[in-house]
């Protein structure tokens, strides 16, 4: 049904693919697993028409769906043939409410009001977003935004779905549900990922990998990462009787998270689990001083900290790295930390980054590595890594955790991946029913 043989280079001359060829039969399911920056998202953008678009670049080769050349079609002419869920959820969200996001493409498909309503209701219900129908998309959590992007694509229901790291940020329940949907769907699906997940097993007809710009059959390789080791000691970050309020101003609803007691030692690793929208990121924002708690206190070694004081001690690596990267180049970002040139060079080498790379041209995974490099250089006593495992290869993820722990930083890892949680050292915490407890 879909056959492609593509070569692509960006406007600045960077070659991404050389004769990358594959085919996908009707109802087929393909998984493409490869390192961040290998070109997975570029491939999805080319197929849906977002590239070269307004960004520029040169495509050679062909991509056909049922014998029809899709490269000659405009993006909106392809939307019923092929659609994607992007890795960066904010990239595709444009409107002011959940309902509007879904109804916009349906209006453009020329569907009548009744059909639109049917599709909106069923996709919202399927992805558990019915209660957020009138909520502003900027008030959703990372996982809820992911489910919204999925519900938009499922409402459009194109012949071929491209799910770019779509399992990331989803809780185990929603990951399982998405896996079951992929397995039972009659549509063709291409799933892109940077590391193997349990949900991928027995789900796909074919597993491929992008290596040096071409697609090859995926072969699992022995991972050469060491399980991070804790060096507990030093200061203690503590939160007592915290009450955190999260508001949906657009819908007039509120959600409260209670944290009776939370402790994190320097050099310790603690893992935080919880469903999408349970308040994990809100807790991270309170601990790092970006959000004020409704009541309770946050202290280090018994000294209560103001919101501003927390920012000097607790680093917060946000779920979406682009929310923290604003300077033009990797070099600018790292130099803004005030670290010496030698230290910057050593971190660049450790995280396989290059000084001159433009931040906005980095892949999502690479952007996460830059984000980690910045906070490693800042040398805060505590760091909160919000879903750092998503979009990174397993090796890179453990490299980041180990680097922080070796520096003596206390690390709070927020994740949805139970395998990751099981392999990380230290205590596990869980948010359930609006309360944080030991897991």
């Amino acid at each position, binding site marked *: 049904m879909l056959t492609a043989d593509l070569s692509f280079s960006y406007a600045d001359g960077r070659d991404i693919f050389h004769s990358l060829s594959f085919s996908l039969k009707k109802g087929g399911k393909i998984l493409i697993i490869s390192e961040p920056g290998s070109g997975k998202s570029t491939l999805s953008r080319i197929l849906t028409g977002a590239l070269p678009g307004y960004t520029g670049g040169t495509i050679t080769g062909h991509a056909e769906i049922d014998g029809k050349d899709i490269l000659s079609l405009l993006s*909106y002419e392809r939307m019923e043939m092929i659609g994607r869920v992007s890795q960066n959820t904010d990239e*595709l969200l444009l*409107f*002011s409410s959940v309902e*509007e996001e879904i109804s916009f493409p349906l209006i453009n498909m020329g569907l009548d009001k009744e059909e639109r309503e049917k599709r909106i209701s069923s996709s919202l219900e399927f992805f558990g977003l019915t209660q957020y129908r*009138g909520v502003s998309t900027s008030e959703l959590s990372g996982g809820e935004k992911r489910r919204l992007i999925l519900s938009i694509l499922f409402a459009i229901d194109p012949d071929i779905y491209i799910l770019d790291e779509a399992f990331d940020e989803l809780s185990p329940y929603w990951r399982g549900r998405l896996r079951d949907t992929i397995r039972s769907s009659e549509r063709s699906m291409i799933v892109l990922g940077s590391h193997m997940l349990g949900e991928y097993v027995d789900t796909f007809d074919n597993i491929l990998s992008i290596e040096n710009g071409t697609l090859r059959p995926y072969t699992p390789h022995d991972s050469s990462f060491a399980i991070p080791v804790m060096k507990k000691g030093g200061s203690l970050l503590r939160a007592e009787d915290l009450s955190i309020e999260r508001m949906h101003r*657009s819908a*007039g609803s509120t959600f409260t998270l209670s944290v009776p007691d939370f402790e994190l030692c320097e050099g310790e690793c603690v893992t935080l689990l919880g469903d999408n929208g349970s308040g994990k990121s809100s807790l991270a924002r309170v601990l790092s001083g970006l959000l004020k708690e409704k009541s309770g206190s946050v202290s280090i070694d018994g000294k209560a900290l103001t919101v501003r004081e927390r920012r000097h001690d607790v680093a917060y690596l946000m779920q979406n790295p682009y*929310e923290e990267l604003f300077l033009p180049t990797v070099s600018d970002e790292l130099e803004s930390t005030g670290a010496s040139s030698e230290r910057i060079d050593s971190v660049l080498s450790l995280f396989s980054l290059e000084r001159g790379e433009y931040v906005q041209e980095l892949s999502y995974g690479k952007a996460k590595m830059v984000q980690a490099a910045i906070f490693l250089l800042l040398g805060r006593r505590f760091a909160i890594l919000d879903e750092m495992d998503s979009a990174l290869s397993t090796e890179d993820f453990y490299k980041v955790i180990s680097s922080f722990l070796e520096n003596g930083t206390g690390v709070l890892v927020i994740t949805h991946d139970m395998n990751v949680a099981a392999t990380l050292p230290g205590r596990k915490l869980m948010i359930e029913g609006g309360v944080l407890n030991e897991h």
Partner: protein
Amino acid sequence: MNISSYIYGTSFYHKLDVRPKLFFTLLFSVISFVLSSHISIAVIFILPLIIMMLSVGKGETWRCYSRLLPLFVIMILFIPFQNRDGHSLLVVRGFTLATEEGFWNVLRIISRLGGISGVLMLLLLTERNESIIRGLRAFHLPYNASLACSMILRYIPYLGHLFSEIRDAMSLRLEEGKRGYPMLPSITALVISAIRMIPDTASALEERGFGRIKPPKERIPHPSGYLIQWLFSVIIPLSLLLVR
């Protein structure tokens, strides 16, 4: 640009139909340029402020207007450059620092800026994006133009949101003992992000089918008291012309 200023509410301004509300916003903005007396200029500033407080509360009103404060301060700093040949108002060691005409001129500009910004913010705080598009289309504006208008209206609040994100990100990188955030890098980052989002938004719109068809206009039913709502929207701004 997934930012919405809309705040859920049941105030009278929330209940006002989007068509008279759009007309009120436009008429109020135009009339603010015609008025010149001190009282009328004060009313231009205060009226949207009071409606906003009644519609979304004091906290949200402060949040909106506090973003304008830096602009007001900059304008006040420019008073000495206004109407240098007017009547002296503030003299320091024989040098006229500010003139009466310069002072009133700046207050007039501040009032108009505050009033127009206030009435536009009120629109965004009390109407969802889709309602604004429907309202604009009711005035026979083409779909593409209505969509573009609604996005442009949200662009400035979005920049405000983006700037606070940048400020937060920068504040997490501050050295011990330092407060605030580096202003120049933050503004540079804002400009880069704002420019970059234009092609991204255009591309995302096309991927979601923008340009594929011309969506038919949906009829908006008239709410109860529709005529009274229109009278409110026309009479209130026009009555400002009577203020001397």
